[in-house]
């Protein structure tokens, strides 16, 4: 019984550990990917790149958001959209300089 109890506890502990979001830090540059999550209240998006990295991007007052070359509102961003992002790495923080909606 003690063994079963310990096993159950370890499984629960593993599930708790596995439930957190993991994000990655990349170098400054341009990346393409899919919008994985949009948080309008924080003007924040998560972008999953083709090499399976997740970029957590908080829009700043200097971030531009465009679609077909035209500036659009943050509310135009939706999960599943293809985007191209120019990011600048400051320390380990990624500042989005430009976000272009591709579809």
């Amino acid at each position, binding site marked *: *019984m003690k063994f079963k*109890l310990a096993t159950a*506890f370890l499984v*629960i*502990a593993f599930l*708790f*550990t596995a*439930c*957190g*979001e*993991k*994000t990655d*830090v990349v170098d400054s540059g341009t990346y393409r990917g899919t919008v994985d999550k949009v*948080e309008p*209240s*924080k*003007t*924040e998006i998560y972008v999953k790149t083709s090499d399976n990295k997740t970029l*957590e991007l*908080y829009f*700043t007052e200097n971030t531009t958001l465009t679609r077909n070359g035209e500036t659009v509102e943050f509310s135009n961003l939706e999960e599943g959209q293809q985007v191209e992002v120019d990011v600048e790495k*400051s*320390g*380990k*923080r*990624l*500042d989005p300089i430009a976000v272009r909606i591709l579809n």
Partner: protein
Amino acid sequence: MEQIPDFWRTEVLHPLFVHFPIALLLMATVFKIATLWVKGKFLDLPGTILLVIGTLGGWLAIYTGDLADGAVSRTICDPTVLKAHENNGYIMIWLFTAAVIIDIFYQFNFSKFKVYLAKGVLILLMITGSGYLAYVGHLGARLVYQQAAGVYIPTTNCAEFN
């Protein structure tokens, strides 16, 4: 000239709320461990009350932390520490929430065997939760003392305080 920011900023709510659940949940864990040696409800019931209030306070701390996240993420230099603080905070609060559920069932008298089982799982969850609580607190301290998360840094000549 630089202006001193308002004290009641969104990111200040989080430190106002986190310290009570830290104390309550750690004390709840100590009380519940002590019930292994001290029989009766003398420590058990206060432990439950501390656990329930501490967990509710913990969820409030999670909520205010989420509000603070939006404000400080654009200024700190290493958001990976913030992400670890957030993720481990969720693990911690779910461990204590699970402990609350087990403890409430435990207070309603299982059969003798299940009481023994419930108490073992309860204390194991609370000890693990306390470990996570300590680690989350450490990460929170790193955010404040290494990266000045949510902290106003005065100008070098302190002119705004004149």
